[in-house]
């Protein structure tokens, strides 16, 4: 399944993601990592839960409001439901042990030049590439 190369939209969206990380650090002194945010849902008694849930709510509400106003975001999931669910379980286990994902390690951590985040990001980028290559092209590449 081909997708359109969108350098300008992707760069602009990326700048917004970085800006969100800077705003959360400037005001709340916190890392904008999605793995930690989801912890707010799973531990509603935690003192950080309210602002984490607020971040999640904003993250869902923004594209939802945009679609109500007529915006369209291209979307396609090239897998079956069962495979998507399997991937979800693996992602959940992985980010919990890694204490972070693309946002926490890949953006916020590397931006601080954290060695842990650089190792984490290099590792998951490599295994994602390997997984996609094996699924799509087999072991022969």
């Amino acid at each position: 399944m081909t997708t359109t190369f969108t350098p300008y939209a992707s760069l602009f969206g990326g700048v917004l993601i970085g800006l969100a990380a800077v705003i959360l650090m400037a005001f709340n002194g916190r890392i904008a990592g999605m793995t930690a945010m989801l912890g707010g849902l799973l531990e509603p008694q935690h003192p950080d839960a309210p602002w984490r849930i607020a971040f999640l709510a904003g993250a869902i509400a923004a594209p939802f409001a945009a679609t109500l106003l007529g915006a369209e975001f291209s979307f396609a999931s090239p897998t079956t439901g069962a495979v998507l669910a399997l991937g979800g379980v693996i992602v959940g286990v992985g980010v919990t042990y890694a204490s972070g994902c693309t946002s926490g390690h890949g953006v916020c951590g590397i931006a601080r030049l954290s060695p842990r985040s650089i190792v984490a990001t290099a590792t998951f980028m490599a295994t994602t590439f390997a997984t996609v290559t094996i699924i799509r092209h087999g072991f022969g590449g």
Partner: protein
Amino acid sequence: MKRILSALAAGTIFGAGIAISGMGNPAKVLNFFDPFGTWDPSLAFVMGGALLTAALGYRLLFGRRQTPLFDTKFHLPTARTIDAKLVGGSALFGIGWGIAGFCPGGAVPALGFAPWPTALFLIAMGGGILFARWLQALPRRQIA
């Protein structure tokens, strides 16, 4: 209350950024990792834009302020060790990302514009997080 509003604002900008960038579209994300097939290099522009902005912003911020506006200190991660948990967890996360095309930060905003099948992924991911937390809470045994 003000901390909740600033987090809501940051989350809103984050969600807009994910939706506009294409990080919430599994087909697009998977194509980034397929240079030998239907390659779409867009993800490099997302990561580049996010990283440059965050690195520059953090640098300005930490250079000018000792504390954030709404808290008494910057809560920066204190863990320093590069261990099997970090590397193994990251490796596993990448495998799941390569299977599903969703990372957590991409999937949460996608719920706002493609509720199905995003909800299925998020529920499964929540199950994975709870399972891993349960494993981590078990009495310590030497596994490796």
